[in-house]
């Protein structure tokens, strides 16, 4: 089997199921970091404004605030159920253990303490290099803590098969081929007809001796048949006003 061309990594659960994780790459994490930086600066500015009148006592509290913002901000937010700082949340990211489990407090602590190493020698140099070199885009802190930053699972897009007469495939297909054909048929309606036709010709061999221009419809038909339909479904009732 060819290596996959996307960056999905799979994590195996104790039940023997593999869960697909979509690692977040450098640009999106950089954006999340900048959003967080903005929030941190605003918090610090607000606290500084509040404590201005408190004199030396206020200065002390401000120093504690600066400490909390730089070290505790990511730790606290990543221990919430969302397991993400506001910046990561905005970008649709979340932190979890590399095995697909929710992040543990120890993991969270380590990955955030080791920011100090990732930040070396300048501007997160080590962290950025590590993220760019690794397919799963983990920085050194992630490696030490066994954590990873991934995209929150998006809700699946609703879809349906295009209209076509169900046809039995003319030759036996493997599971992967069947999956590819049904995935194509599911997507076909969101593609332009030309593009759909273009993709469909790649699978022309699976359609037997169909005329070239019918390949797309034949594929959808095969997908419908594979999916379990044996006859053309009754025409959908036209919605009122259509």
């Amino acid at each position, binding site marked *: 089997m060819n290596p996959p061309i996307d960056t999905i990594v799979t994590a195996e659960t104790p039940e023997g199921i593999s869960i697909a994780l979509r690692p977040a790459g450098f640009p999106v994490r950089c954006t999340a970091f900048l959003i967080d930086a903005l929030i941190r600066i605003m918090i610090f500015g607000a606290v500084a404004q509040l404590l201005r009148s408190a004199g030396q006592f206020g200065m002390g509290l401000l120093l504690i605030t600066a400490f909390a913002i730089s070290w505790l901000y990511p730790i606290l937010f990543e221990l919430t159920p969302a397991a993400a700082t506001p910046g990561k949340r905005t970008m649709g990211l979340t932190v979890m253990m590399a095995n697909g489990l929710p992040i543990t407090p*120890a993991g969270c602590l380590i990955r955030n303490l080791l920011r100090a190493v990732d930040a070396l020698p300048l501007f997160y140099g080590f962290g950025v290099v590590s993220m760019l070199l690794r397919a799963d885009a983990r920085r050194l802190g992630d490696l030490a803590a066994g954590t990873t930053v991934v995209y929150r699972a998006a809700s699946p897009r609703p879809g349906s098969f295009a209209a076509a007469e169900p046809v039995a495939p003319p030759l036996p297909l493997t599971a992967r081929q069947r999956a590819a054909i049904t995935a194509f048929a599911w997507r076909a309606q969101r593609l332009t007809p030309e593009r759909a036709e273009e993709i469909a010709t790649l699978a022309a061999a699976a359609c037997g001796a169909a005329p070239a221009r019918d390949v797309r419809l034949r594929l959808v038909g095969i997908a419908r048949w594979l999916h*379990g339909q044996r006859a053309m479904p009754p025409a959908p009732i036209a919605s009122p006003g259509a």
Partner: protein
Amino acid sequence: MTPLEFEASHAAAWTELEAMLHRPERELEPERFLALYRGSCEQLALAQARGVPEHVVERLARLTANAHQIIYRRADFGFARLAEALLQRFPAMVRGHWRYVAIAALLLVGPALSVGVAVYRQPELIYSLVSADTVAQFEQMYGPGAEAIGRVRNAGTDWQMFGFYIQNNISIAFQCYVMGIVFGVGSVFFLCFNGLQIGAVAGFVAERGYGGAFFPFVATHSAFELTAIVFCGGAGLRLGASVLSPGRLPRVAALQAAARDTSFIVFGAAVMLVIAALLEAFWSSAAWVAPRAKYVCAAFCWLLVLLFFLRRPRAD
């Protein structure tokens, strides 16, 4: 069984599980939830193996992953675990890493003592170690007429210093720890560097005859501060050692194991540093406390710290 039949026969269970995932966790019925989760695991495996359409697999995978997150979520990091981590795991890990801790202690104390003695004998040496401004600051902090010991004049109140000490000390300790990942070199450097600084100040101040203010000042909080820095340095050396000689593990796995173990040490050391900052800001610097009282308190603190880490480990 065609995918259509497959989907039809399990759709009810999937919808039920999806509905459960949207409700607050405490409302879940554990038996039903687990049964549904096991079912979805089984069906996901089947779906992946049989080439069921991608959208069905995706829905099922998402459902399973979300339920998996809830089932394996660690919801028990409460106070009991916190106390256990601090009072049991932390000293146990320090004892378990006593070789690293001993090396770290040598790396801090060695330079401190030798530089201290050298500066005491030849005070002008201090100018090759720290800048002239810093030396002037030392004179102000520990010299006669300091209203609060250990501070530059007008440095601020106890609260201000508390904030500064936390920031400063924890940064130093974290540096000693995390820089260890660079083959341990970082830990060695920061331990030696800090030992050198401490030795330079102590030697200089003692030579000038300010020791009466300096030593009572540092005696108490150093029980927590220096030990915490040594522990962090030792933990950093362990990180470095795991990178240098990972043994039978791959390097990354060895580093992960080292980080897991030492995280307890760093966590405990951070708590010790907060205690040290409290003492340093409110007790050590108080000029109204007699030096004798500070020495007694210091002896008590050192004893407390030593006993805490040397006491017989609880059999478990």
